[in-house]
């Protein structure tokens, strides 16, 4: 079992202080959470806004420090590592953000955006090799070569998100964290990006932590789903089981809230339209 685990989170807690400098009030964003991300697995994290999904992702990336608990990446405890010792681990996990417009530097060309991580990690230092690698990445995310000399604002939302994905996979990470990566996109574009993510994951054997509030998206992409509520994980299950036999009351509430169109497809009528 433990050989298959890429990231293991043990009893992690993180709280933030609220209001005034002298007040002692604190908000616990992540409360005593434990989870494992297996190798090659897509683990989805669902829950309402403010339930701590993003904070948990930032903790795993070591972008924020946990108050207590430990985060183990491929057998090494990275909670106490800092600076230089942490650097090799940074290369092994990458993030795809929600808003592709604000996560790409508007003053950089697409070519430079995709090349920047390779520059930092000194991958493919040879110019020709680097150009080849960029072309290969473009092909993987299904972008045209003409996009390379454009600026982010010249691309559509879907294309920008493809650039964000190309940048994340450019240094062959083992874990990709997608924080609401498809929620800002139109349905037809969202479907394209979801297919792309699934295909890439299969091809590169990536592990993926997929954060979303959209349960139908999660059902499509995830191997396992964690439902979060008020900073705690209240249920973990495979999507098939989660949607057919939800155990926790909150999961049931979430599922009942999805605007469902299945009834119409089957020729029936929705409960709202009697």
């Amino acid at each position, binding site marked *: 079992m433990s050989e298959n685990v890429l990231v293991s989170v043990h009893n992690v807690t993180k709280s933030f202080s609220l209001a005034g400098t002298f007040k002692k009030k604190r908000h616990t964003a992540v409360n005593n959470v434990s989870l494992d991300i297996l190798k090659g697995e897509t683990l989805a994290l669902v829950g309402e806004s403010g339930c701590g999904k993003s904070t948990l992702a930032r903790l795993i990336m070591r972008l924020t420090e946990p108050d207590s608990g430990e985060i183990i990446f491929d057998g090494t405890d990275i909670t106490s590592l800092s600076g230089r010792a942490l650097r090799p681990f940074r290369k092994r996990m990458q993030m795809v953000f929600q808003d592709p417009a604000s996560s790409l530097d508007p003053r950089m060309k697409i070519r430079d955006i995709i090349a920047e991580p390779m520059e930092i990690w000194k991958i493919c230092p040879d110019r020709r090799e680097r150009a080849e690698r960029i072309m290969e990445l473009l092909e993987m995310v299904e972008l045209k070569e003409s996009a390379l000399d454009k600026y982010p604002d010249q691309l559509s939302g879907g294309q920008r998100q493809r650039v964000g994905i190309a940048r994340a996979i450019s240094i062959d990470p083992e874990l990709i964290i997608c924080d609401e990566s498809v929620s800002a996109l139109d349905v037809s574009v969202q*479907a394209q990006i979801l*297919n792309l993510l699934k295909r890439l994951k299969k091809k590169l054997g990536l592990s993926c932590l997929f954060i979303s509030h959209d*349960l139908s998206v999660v059902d*499509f992409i995830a191997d396992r789903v964690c439902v979060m509520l008020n900073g705690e994980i209240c249920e973990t299950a495979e999507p*098939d089981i989660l949607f057919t036999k939800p155990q926790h009351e909150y999961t049931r509430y*979430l599922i009942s*809230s999805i*605007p469902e169109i299945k009834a119409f497809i089957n020729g029936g009528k929705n409960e709202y339209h009697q």
Partner: protein
Amino acid sequence: MKDRLLEIRDLTVSLKKKNSSIPIVKGIDMIIKRGEIAGLVGESGCGKSMTARSLMRIQPPSAIVDGSILWYEADGTSTDLTKLKEKELRKMCGPQIGMVFQEPMTSLNPMIRIGDQVAEALLIHKMAGSRREARDKVIRILKEVGIRDPELRYRSYPHELSGGMRQRVVIAMAMICEPKLLIADEPTTALDVTTEAQILKLIRQMCTTRNMSALVITHNMGVVSQLCDRVYVMYTGRILERAPVGEIFSKPLHPYTKGLLSSIPRIGSNPEYLTTIPGSIPETDQKTSGCEFCLRCSEDERRCFFEMPEETGYAEEHYVRCFAAQHRMEAENE
């Protein structure tokens, strides 16, 4: 005729640029009946918000609006909203037409207590005799939209409320003058699913209890299926298909509608990959005499490229603008 509330005839909106104009809405027709919720669906940039804004004449200053928007009174007489003077139209906005915007954070003034913001419309339209009466009305409506402790919340500022609560306040603002038509532009896009469900239920409930009509603009097919009675599918400024809600989901005719529906991941269906619409929406300055969708269409014919198909009826109140769909209908009839 009597059950009509609003009729849009050949509405066009174009944006003026230096020496050209870009068409955004290209001649749409729409009828909203009394007590009915109409849904306008389409992807970003297809002109749905521009349509809604031009109804209330709050489009950007560079936009040119053409066509007629007929408002029907209960006795069957109609007035054209586009021909009204600014002052007369402003009298309509509030008492007759209310609008809910997408982002509850930006459509509320952060410096004013929410109660006073909701009361503003009442005082402007002189629908309350005194401030006290206005206050009572506001508290009643806040309660109706599901805000707990409305007396206390009256004095809250927008930042003190959650997203769902703020959206309820925005709905209360639109509803306070008891309009006959509610225009809701992406009312739940910024909200969580659980809150979304509550807000949808609230809008539906309000429409039923007050016999109010609504025009709901959204890109979410799930929202449409839960809320709307009639659906208009819009693509690059044109209505490609319109039908009662059940028909659109059980018998979609236009390839674009079909594509949209199949793009939505559905719980329990477990496909390996989703069916997608290839390509992306065309640039606004791209001109074609034919169907704008033909480059992404799976059933395109040669003439789609040169000719815009006319709207043809498939069933009662189910219309589609597509050659391929026409052929299929003809084959079906034979």
